[in-house]
């Protein structure tokens, strides 16, 4: 059992979590064609929700998820339906990435991140849950990791699987796909476009809230935590192919692997540079990402 | 063109096509939907490269040339789905084409107005291109392509979506363009237009050349009628 093998395992575990965080972003982009720049801020906001529930009522995030994820579904749904909808209607339907919506989400990111800074100050908090402070020891105790990380890894696949199923195998998914391909035609077929957008946005946000539960139980909570994962999520979804759910998970795994395995051979800063360089190379060779579809 | 073939994955869109377009002629390219007309077009304009075969333009091998070089060599095209530069005015759209051979904005503008006159743009030249009517968008496509000063112009279904009267107008435009010394290759579904306009017609069917000849020859060809024109072609004629 050498370090290389261990770091591969750690890379995969971490990559799963990255993928989980990115998958919501991918769903939203795939349907509404918006890169949600407030993704990191919303992740952070969900983490604080778990923080409150844990410190006040001692509810474990993985349990609280049952309440918070639906709550974030509603938040995402309303955000799309009430706020982003008028912006979208105003933009030409064919625009690949509506600029005004992008700007709006950047503004939203500032606002949320700093609102939480005002409320919670910038102090780092951790949630000492059972899964945070207990370690799984596998392979003769050589492979040690927090239970929360293992749960996150598993959840990544569960959430991605559920989302994939919803989008590709259900009636709702058919509508979502229809709307993502041709908004007006879908409306003419009797699909309520903006409700469908809202649902997609809500699903993405709910997935993000689940990722938030994972992050809160293996990392820490602070108003700036969104930055740590935000930019990385953008890279991950692009690497995997914008809009592709399996792509987000694969992209996440690749990032996790490079960070952990790369750090075995070179310094970790060089490893993180390596992941960006790899990202660029993939894009140049395959401009639509690993699993992206050509339009 | 010699033995041009194009495959998309397993699908052969154009198979072993050979043909020639003479200078200063109007050549028609017809065929059922999905026959590979647009694909053939795209290959001539070097938007795609053929899987095999060679294409010559003015005796030069252009098989592997780039799209943007074609315009410089004197070959311009329009798109089946019109693609105006939406944010610009009609005039500015045409000017983009005219900038190819000069950088002088004044000359360019003059040229653009000339071309607009030639194709008979009826709308206000300062209108934003996206807001014009379908016919004007089609004319704009032609005008923009003409503005680069081509010797050969490829027109892809410029008349689709126009009523017979408007088609006549466009036929007129085409003639004028030809008279200005430009060779035309045109894809069209409207038989009457094609018959009246073209000097020579190719019929494409499932990627292969079915018939080649003058309008009269084609009209009397059994294969052409069964594959494309339909049994009641004669009725339509009347």
């Amino acid at each position, binding site marked *: 059992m050498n370090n290389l093998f261990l770091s591969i395992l750690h890379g995969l575990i971490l990559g799963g979590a990255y993928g989980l965080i990115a998958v919501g972003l991918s769903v939203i982009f795939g349907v509404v064609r918006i890169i949600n720049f407030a993704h990191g801020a919303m992740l952070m906001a969900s983490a604080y929700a778990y923080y409150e529930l844990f410190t006040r009522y001692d509810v474990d995030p993985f349990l609280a998820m049952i309440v918070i994820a639906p709550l974030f579904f509603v938040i995402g749904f309303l955000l799309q339906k009430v706020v982003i909808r*008028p*912006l979208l209607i*105003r933009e030409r339907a064919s625009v*690949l*990435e509506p*600029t*005004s919506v*992008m*700007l709006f989400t*950047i*503004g*939203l*990111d*500032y*606002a949320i*991140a*700093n609102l*939480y*800074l*005002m409320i919670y100050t*910038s102090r780092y908090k951790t949630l000492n849950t059972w899964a945070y402070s207990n370690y799984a020891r596998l392979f003769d105790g050589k492979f040690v990791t927090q239970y929360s990380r293992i749960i996150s890894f598993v959840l990544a696949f569960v959430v991605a699987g559920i989302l994939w199923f919803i989008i590709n195998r259900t009636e709702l998914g058919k509508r979502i796909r229809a709307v993502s391909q041709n908004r007006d035609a879908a409306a003419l077929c009797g699909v309520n476009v903006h409700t469908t957008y809202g649902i997609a946005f809500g699903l993405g946000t709910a997935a993000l809230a689940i990722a938030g539960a994972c992050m809160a139980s293996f990392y820490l909570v602070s108003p700036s935590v969104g930055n740590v994962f935000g*930019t990385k999520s*953008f*890279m991950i979804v692009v690497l995997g192919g914008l809009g592709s759910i399996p792509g987000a998970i694969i992209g996440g795994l690749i990032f996790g692997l490079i960070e952990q395995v790369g750090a075995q051979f070179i*310094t970790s800063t060089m490893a993180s*540079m390596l992941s*960006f*360089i790899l*990202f*660029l190379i993939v*894009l*140049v060779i395959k*401009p639509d990402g690993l699993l992206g579809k050509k339009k | 063109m010699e033995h041009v073939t194009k495959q998309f994955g397993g699908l052969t869109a154009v198979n072993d096509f050979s043909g020639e377009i003479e200078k200063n002629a109007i050549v028609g390219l017809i065929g059922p939907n999905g026959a590979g007309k647009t694909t053939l077009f795209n290959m001539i304009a070097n*938007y795609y490269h053929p899987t095999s075969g060679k294409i010559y333009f003015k005796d030069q091998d252009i098989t592997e040339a780039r*799209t*943007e*070089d*074609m*315009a*410089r060599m004197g070959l*311009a095209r329009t*798109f089946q789905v019109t*693609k*105006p*530069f*939406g*944010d*610009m*005015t009609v005039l*500015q759209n045409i*000017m*983009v*084409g005219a*900038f*190819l051979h000069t*950088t002088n*904005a004044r000359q360019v503008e003059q040229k653009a107005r000339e071309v607009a006159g030639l194709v008979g743009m009826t709308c206000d030249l*300062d209108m934003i291109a996206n807001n014009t009517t379908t016919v004007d968008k089609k004319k704009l496509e032609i005008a923009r*392509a003409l503005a*680069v000063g081509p010797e050969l112009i490829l027109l892809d279904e410029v008349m689709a979506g126009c009523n017979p009267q408007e088609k006549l107008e466009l036929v007129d435009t085409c003639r004028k363009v030809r008279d200005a010394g430009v060779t035309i290759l045109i894809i069209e579904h409207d038989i009457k237009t094609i018959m009246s306009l073209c000097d020579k017609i190719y019929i494409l069917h499932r990627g292969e050349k079915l018939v080649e000849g003058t309008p009269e020859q084609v009209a009397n060809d059994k294969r052409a009628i069964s594959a494309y024109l339909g049994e009641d072609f004669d009725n339509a004629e009347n």
Partner: protein
Amino acid sequence: MSYKGNSIFKGKFFVWLAALCFLVAPLLANTYMQSILILVCFYAFAAVAWNLICGYAGTMSLGHSVYMGIGGYISTILLETKGVSPWIGMLIGAAVAMLIGVVISYPTFRLKGPYFTLASIAICEIFGTFVLNTENLGPIPLKGGSGWSLTQTGYQAVMYEFRSKLGYYYVAFILLAIGVFVTWKMSRSKLGYYLVAIRSDDDAARSLGINVTKYKLIAMGISCFMISLAGTFYAQYFRYIGPDRIFGYDLAVQIALIALIGGQGTVMGPVIGAVVLVPLSEYLSATFAGTMSGLNLFLYGVIMMLVVYFMPHGLCEYVVKAAQWIEEKLFGAHGKRKQSKAASK
């Protein structure tokens, strides 16, 4: 965002009026106001440079500050190690930035829409991480994370160092004026037309004989050249340059925001954006930062959302409308006729 936006201010009155304001304002202001005016010019110039490629050709870069960093670093290193005047260093830096920009953009211009945007962020991160972790690049000292603190040269103008704010101000203003002029010239030239055509539909542009990559690279080159001049100005004015800020995503976003909120793809948009946003953020942070940390940036975000919400095409559109209205009032029908004639050009 309409292309017609380019023909604003044809009744040159307002441009001259604005230029006059810019020229005279610092003379009337106290040093604090002067420093804000300098920032306005600096950010406006950076946004103008950004707009040249990203606004006109529609390639939304959120990593443009990287070229600013390259320019700033090169002129600073030349000054500190070889004593080369930053005036010369600035041009050398700009040339290098232009070269690097063109080389990097060649492959990345193949990417469309959000892919390009995110790739630009990655490039910014790569450069930032590299400089941050490199003490020496071969024989060239980079100083890694500590950055460069510029030694004083005794306020010599030939060394790009001025005793009074006014010196810096007029340098920034001249840069800005050049930037606006270049943009204006470009917008009415072949390059400008081509870029907007490419933004609308690059397939159609290709069919008209436009070498899309070539023209985008030309614009990119000009843009990198200009923004790297801003980098030298940054280093000289703040007298400190370090990697975390200048190669950072935050600065890049800030520059893009100014151009976008002002009005992407218009001559004056970035300037208007800077005139509004820079003092706004300064005001917010002066008023609220001490009261409650985060309040200033929170309000900034909220205001940004409101602007996007109510002025989707940027402030430029409204400024133009207002200007037209005033012009009509001032010059009556004559002004209006001039305007419409100008618009038809």
